[in-house]
């Protein structure tokens, strides 16, 4: 069975903290993505990676960075957390060509106080 695992379901962090969100997939997929999901705004792409050490900005990259040192792992970094980054964060992966669609993790609900 396909698995995308996000390290935390719930996180509470303080304003200004550096926050790491981890995502691991076991399907040997080339592409990995980070989205955030907010009520009324839907899913918005933050960053994606199509290969190890490769990354591309999505629609809302400001305040975020990413790291992909190994094919199976894609990390999202909030350099200095702010309250407007309180959101549900979703990681996804897909094989090249998208034949079977993206597979999502269960999400991390981040609250910045």
């Amino acid at each position, binding site marked *: 069975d396909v698995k995308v695992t996000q390290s935390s379901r719930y996180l509470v962090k303080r304003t200004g903290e550096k926050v790491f969100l981890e995502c691991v997939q076991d399907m040997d997929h080339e592409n990995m993505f980070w989205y955030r999901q907010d009520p009324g705004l839907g899913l918005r*792409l933050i960053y994606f990676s*199509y290969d190890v050490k490769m990354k591309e900005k999505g629609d809302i990259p400001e305040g975020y960075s990413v790291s992909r040192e190994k094919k199976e792992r894609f990390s999202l970094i909030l350099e200095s957390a702010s309250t407007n980054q309180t959101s549900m964060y979703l990681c996804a992966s897909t094989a090249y060509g998208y034949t079977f669609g993206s597979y*999502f993790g269960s999400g991390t609900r981040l609250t910045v106080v």
Partner: protein
Amino acid sequence: EDQVTQSPEALRLQEGESSSLNCSYTVSGLRGLFWYRQDPGKGPEFLFTLYSAGEEKEKERLKATLTKKESFLHITAPKPEDSATYLCAVHIWGSQGNLIFGKGTKLSVKP
């Protein structure tokens, strides 16, 4: 600008009452259209991929269809366990692989 619009935002049905959800898109070049189901507090679960106008896919009580401008997710004789938010997303030629999502339709099926 590439856009995906889903309607209605919310839909309430009685158990057994069939209906359809709509996903209209305005994109430069459609590579694929995807339907997902999302339960509260969980990540989206992949349902279908459609690639060309006229294509149809079925799974249990769900059937997805595609035209050149829109896609429909038909729900036949729904059950309460079909209650969820249904998301539509498109993949565009020329983009590396990211999807553009609609805002979803929240479906509630009452017994």
